[in-house]
């Protein structure tokens, strides 16, 4: 990149957004070229208020600095010229410059309060989605109990989870954390809410409809197959969508900057259809398949790879059945009991070379057993003792 690019690029970005109808917002986080409209009813209100504050600020700044500059030029020091007397007080002026800003501040406060209230309150008919934050992933559970298992790559970040919301419908997200404080931030929606380990918080919004005015993209049927590596997507017709990046905005540790997810806005009927298909294990699935589903739905994939690559946590490939070094110096054979302990009490034994970063993930007994079965299936080493899972016989060679 050349030096001129450094200077021109931001200007171009600004110019681009201005042509899109917004003065204040630069490039989009979605792929579509959509104007700066805030993307939700609440967001548009925030944008209007922000523009108001900015214009007040710019006028004040130009006034203050312009006057200073004028005085500096007009009254620069000249040798031998006596200074002029001038008043050190001017009561009407001083009252004016106290009262006028105060009026503007009062307007800003009330406007900000009303727009804030809109983002805190959702109607009783709102579609409710549960969002669970953990280091360093987001899990989404729809009102029908389905969990999102769609993993996409976005903006250079890998392994971001995607979830759906219905367009032009009141949506209420219920947020909770499994470990430390996170913050659920959708920049395009101009809003965020902190996520706590000891209480629920909420995030209410209603997106703009998927119309030409607000912009949208088409999802082609052939794209559906590629759409998300684990999507189980069977929707075969084209559908409209908009996509928005989700960030964690409260510092939460090593991989804070990679704790992103993708929110996809679709038509309400598409939402109903996809959510009913998405993200529930087949009732006839094997424990390994259920384990794979848990791996994605509960975001184990954020820290544990299955292809041998080291991540925040050890890879699951060839984890089972091998002996590993631990931070206390011991060497332990990773068998079922060890895996069970490591999932239920993450800090009990920590692998050498890794920090104790894992949160306690709530799992049912069935899910726990399935995950262990899945981990076992990823190992080429057959264990000497096999504890049968769910009464089924296990695969893998014998002793």
């Amino acid at each position, binding site marked *: 990149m050349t030096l001129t690019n450094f200077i021109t690029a*931001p200007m171009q970005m600004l110019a681009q957004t201005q042509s899109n109808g917004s003065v204040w917002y630069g490039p989009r986080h979605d792929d579509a070229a959509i104007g700066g409209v805030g993307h939700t009813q609440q967001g548009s209100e925030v944008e209007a208020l922000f523009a108001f504050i900015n214009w007040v600020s710019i006028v004040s700044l130009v006034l203050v600095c312009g006057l*200073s500059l004028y005085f500096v030029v007009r009254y620069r020091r000249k040798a031998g010229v*006596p*200074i002029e007397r001038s008043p050190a007080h001017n009561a009407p*002026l001083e009252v004016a410059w106290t009262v006028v800003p105060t009026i503007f501040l009062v307007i800003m406060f009330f406007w900000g309060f009303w727009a804030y*209230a809109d983002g805190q309150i959702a109607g009783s008919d709102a579609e409710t989605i549960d969002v669970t934050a953990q280091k360093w992933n987001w899990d989404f559970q729809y009102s029908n109990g389905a969990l999102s298992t769609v993993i996409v790559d976005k903006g250079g970040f890998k392994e971001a989870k995607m979830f759906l919301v219905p367009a032009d419908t009141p949506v209420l997200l219920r947020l909770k954390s499994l470990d430390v404080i996170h913050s659920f931030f959708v*920049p*395009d929606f101009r809003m965020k809410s902190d996520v706590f380990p000891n209480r629920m918080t909420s995030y209410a919004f209603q997106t703009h409809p998927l119309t030409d005015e607000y912009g949208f993209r088409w999802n082609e049927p052939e794209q559906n197959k590629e759409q998300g590596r684990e999507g189980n997507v069977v929707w075969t017709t084209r559908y409209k969508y908009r996509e928005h990046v989700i960030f964690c905005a409260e510092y939460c540790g090593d991989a804070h900057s990679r704790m992103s997810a993708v929110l996809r806005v679709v038509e309400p009927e598409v939402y109903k259809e996809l959510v009913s298909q998405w993200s529930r294990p087949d009732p006839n699935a094997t424990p390994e398949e259920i384990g794979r589903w848990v791996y994605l739905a509960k975001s184990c994939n954020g820290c544990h790879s299955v292809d041998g690559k080291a991540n925040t946590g050890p890879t699951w490939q060839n984890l089972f059945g091998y002996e590993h070094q631990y931070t206390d110096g011991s060497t332990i054979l990773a068998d079922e009991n060890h895996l069970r302990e490591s999932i239920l009490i993450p800090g009990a034994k920590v692998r050498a070379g890794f920090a104790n970063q894992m949160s306690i993930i709530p799992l049912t007994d069935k899910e726990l057993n399935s995950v262990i079965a899945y981990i076992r299936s990823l190992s080429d080493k057959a264990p000497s003792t096999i504890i049968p899972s769910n009464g089924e016989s296990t695969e893998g060679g014998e002793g």
Partner: protein
Amino acid sequence: MTTIDTSRPADHGHDDHGHHGSYLKSRGSIWADIINWATTVDHKKIGVMYLVAVLFFFFCGGLMAILLRTDLLDPIRDTATGVTGGSSFLVFNKPESIGAAGQNYNRIMTLHGAIMVFMFIVPGIPASLGNFFLPLMIGAKDVAFPKLNLFSWYVYLFGALFALWSVGMGGVETGWTFYTPYSSSEAVDHANVVLVVLGVFIMGFSSIMTGLNFVVTVHKLRAPGMGWFDMPLFVWAVYATALIQVLATPVIGITTLLLIFERVFGIGIFDPALGGDPVLFQHFFWFYSHPVVYIMILPAMGVISECIAVHARKPIFGYHAIAFSSLAIAGVAFLVWGHHLFTSEGELAAVVFSALTFLVAIPTAVKVFNWVSTLYKGSIALNTAMLYALAFIFTFSVGGLTGLPLATLATDLHLHDTYYVVAHFHYVMFGGMVIGMMAGLHHWWPKMFGKMVSEPISITGFALVFIGFNLTFIIQFILGVNGMPRRYASYIDEFRQMHQFSTIGSWILALGFLIHLFAFLHSMFKGKPAPANPWGGLTLEWEADAPPDEHNFAHEPLVTHGPYDFDDVVPPHCDPADFPLPEPLPAGAKGHH
């Protein structure tokens, strides 16, 4: 303003009685000098020692900032060839994994914040320039408790080294705010967090002792004839700061102690896993750390008032308004901590704190208007100190005005914890405190060391600092508005150009400071000897020699005029031909006071 017309000794400072020579005079040998400085109770020497210490930590924190910005030149990516971008610039620690790259960044980010806030900005102006000039400006021989003053310097240094010890132990990655439950979770090393937090606890005592010393000094040691409203505005500002230091610092002491108890003894105070409340920590933390913002900025405002009045040769416009707004800001400062928690506290609290926050804007705006009005009909000299003061009006106004969308609830929900906040507080902290300190250093350097600083060199430094600073942080407003969260070791692709723009700005900024460093060293060794009153100031410190006599003044000064009566008084040590006065007012006419 009261004027006591008492005749002063005509040849003050030059008779034998009470004249000891410059405070910088050597004791003969280097060891004698070291022992003399290490055991000194002279407020000027302690001020200089503070200055050296805070500038050293400013350099350390600045180095961290450059590392961070360089780190952000490229996003961290996990590619087929390994980890690219990000911390690969940190040659001393090439990351093996993408997690290690993030950890590198987070540790340096924590260090940058902790060093800059606790070791540089908080003690910055009051402990260095304040220590040196507060007694001089009120015509005192020293502060009220000189030994306590020296002790507080040692406590400060001990605390700072204690905190830095944690770097040798492997570093801390909690961010300078130490938010629980992350800072009390097992993911972060116990010993390191405890060391840093203990360092902050210890430095807090230094802050309290300095504040206490200044409050008593201002109350008890003003020269005869100096009423409260004859005090220079820098003294008002440092006095208001000292009040906050004494009242607010114990809270951070208790908070850090509770955090240490939680980590060491497992008592559940903040960690929900132990039955605590993590948001309680945020309340405690900001109950101190918001008033601390004013500990940082008020002294800088005082410096700017001095610089603008002296270099524009104008009675300051609205002296009382500026003095009272310092106190008003100090008072309201205690009521606004909740605006750091709009996204985490209850709705009612958020509304109340939003309203209270707007209250701070009013006295702050009044100060800025007063400074601009002071320029009107002045006689403005554009030297480095004045250029910094004028730059302050711009950068601090930007910082203040960009605070408005953060005080407004709805817009804050978007901007909170993004680069917009980073840019905003750098405009306030850097554009306010650092620019103010640079103005003060250039304003008072001749008095402190008896040498002039080369104007061409320091104006070059100023130009680079001003341009570099604005390039670095203006773009961060746009980044933040677009949703770039703060404390991110990496970012999505579309933020890349703007990050690179900002990084180049930071290099220009660093170059500017290196030129300033050169200018100061050049002045020390090759600078022209400074006259006692190079700018024609009227406050008492300009009556002392340059550098001042060991006992400040040969005689206890009598205050015979206000600090900014440029219309009526020829400055001490100055040729009346260089400072021509306007026609005296006709008898019976009302002056401007």
